[in-house]
């Protein structure tokens, strides 16, 4: 992620995710790791496109705000991103949308974020193990536990 230095990445995360009163703060290290894995797993052109979006954000910040993204106040960064996202110009909107997409995924996939929101994949997984369906027989009664 050459387009953003370590600190730039953190600022970007906070600008997209905001500060929640009930959810934990972003985890730049873990999220960066996920991001790299996600970019590698995708279409060959995707990492290039993603970096291009980050560079475009920097350039747009200079053009629209007169300052680099990293020098904007926290609220200014958020306003800048919201302006892009609500633009009727699909390129401006697309730049912010694409830049934000894996950041949101990398944050909300963390169990410490999703569980307080009511989504606990591990608990559902465990429950599903107790309710295995096969094609040729009915479910056992709940009390019987693991098949």
């Amino acid at each position, binding site marked *: 992620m050459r387009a953003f230095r370590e600190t730039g990445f953190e600022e970007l995360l906070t600008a997209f995710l905001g500060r929640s009163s009930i959810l934990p703060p972003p985890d730049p290290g873990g999220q960066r790791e996920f991001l790299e894995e*996600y970019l590698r797993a995708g279409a060959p052109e995707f990492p290039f496109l993603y970096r291009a979006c980050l560079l475009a954000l920097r350039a747009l910040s200079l053009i629209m705000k007169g300052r680099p993204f990293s020098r904007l106040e926290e609220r200014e*960064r958020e306003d800048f991103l919201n302006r892009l996202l609500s633009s009727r110009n*699909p390129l401006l909107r697309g730049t912010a949308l694409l830049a934000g997409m894996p950041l949101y995924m990398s944050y909300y996939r963390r169990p410490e974020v999703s569980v307080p929101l009511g989504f606990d994949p591990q608990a559902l997984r465990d429950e*599903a193990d107790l309710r295995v369906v096969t094609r040729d027989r009915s479910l056992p009664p709940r009390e019987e536990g693991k098949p």
Partner: protein
Amino acid sequence: MILTPEEVASDLRLEADVAIIGSGAGGGPLARELASEGHRVVVIEEGGYFTRRDFNLRPSEAYMRMYRDAGQTVTLGMPFILLPLGKTVGGTTTVNSGTALRMHRPVLKKWQLAHGLREITEGELDLIYAHLEEYLFVKRADPEVAGKVARTFLAGAERLGLSCGWLPRNAKECEGFGSCVFGCPSGSKQSVDVSFIPDAVAFGADIYTRCRAERILLREGRAVGVSASFLDPVSGRPNGRRLEVGAKVVVLSAGAVSSPFLLLRQGLANSSGQVGKNLQIHPAVQTVALFDEVLGPPRGIPQACYVDEFQGEGIMLEGGTVPPEVHALALPFAGRRHASLMEKYPNMGIFGGMVSESDSRGRVVDLRRAGGRPAMLYNLRGRDVEKAKAAVVLMAEIWFAAGARRVFTPIAGHYELCGPRDLRRLERSRVRASDFYGMSAYHPLGTCRMGGDPEWSVVRHTGETWDVENLFICDGSILPSSPGVNPQLTIMAMAMRIAGFVDEKLSA
């Protein structure tokens, strides 16, 4: 047997009656039918094989493992449309929502009259649909299991007097784990990986996984086999080992994007010039609604109910709750705004609408990019933009009728609706294709269309290509137009029909 590249130590050369490329809604049923008739069937599948134990309900992991390009496939045009494609044993059915609808009846008339497909009759299709519905345990979603989001939306639709109901689904004893599109963790969803494929294997078919078909082998103008490469499970690149299957019949079932791409690469079966053209995708929009009460997503059946009041005009509404990781992408806000809304995720519902009959047509092309990959070109045009907007307006009306405090739409300039006044403003506004935020589509179809005239179609009603003897196509690409609803059951029905013709050919 289901084989992985690790089990193959050297290059392989096999002989079979039928080689099938792809194991999805088209390839899976075909493999089962032909294997059950005693034919030697080899299936070549680019994706890996996963079972319910591998499905951990984590969206991003599912995207990376079971979707082509980690779910990042998009159409090029205005607007960009996310078009995710499954890449796993069972094809896209392994990661689909499990809606199992018969085609919209007037569409069959159109196929018969406009596409010369008189051989496909309503009576024959009814029999096949009934058989499939029994085999796949199709029944209506259980309102008790469906979840509060679906019940709330449906209550809103009923309040407005709209035609609506619970969707038929190929799910047995579903308990609503809210995760159909990331793999069903209980094995309830009767996708091809848990139904047709295990049966095909029991009848003796072999499935070669993580194996990418690259060429259809020809001799004297006839298809005689397939050449393929085994893939490294981590990098997805060829691992140096090859598979060659000599076969009496070759069936291309790689889906509406990969099937035309393979043909275009080889310059095959395209005397009509129709290969790759006529791409239809059912462009989809979604709305998010905020309620005072807790709705508790994503527990329940993500896609449990429908509103078909405007199906005749090409608009179908079908629900879809998603985990926070995906829900967050539907909210077009950043920063504090985003955080404060996501904190209310438990009080939110999400619902989708698709343009089920559209005028827009795209195409699959071979851009001759490195590594050889298809590109999908698609522009959302005139009336379809209106229909997408109408779907958004209708969903918003239903949400408000159901008691929503606010509704969030994907239309720039109208992201947040606080009540009927905002809704009227949206209704009056002129919306352009480029105004849609994060549009998606899930049903690519039509790129090797079936028809009665070799000048206008790629395959006959039997599934055999007009140009290459013994080369059949059997997947979403052969549907001459949208079936007006989610297509998996119709693709399977076509596969059952085509199996009969392949069997005849092999037995002759």
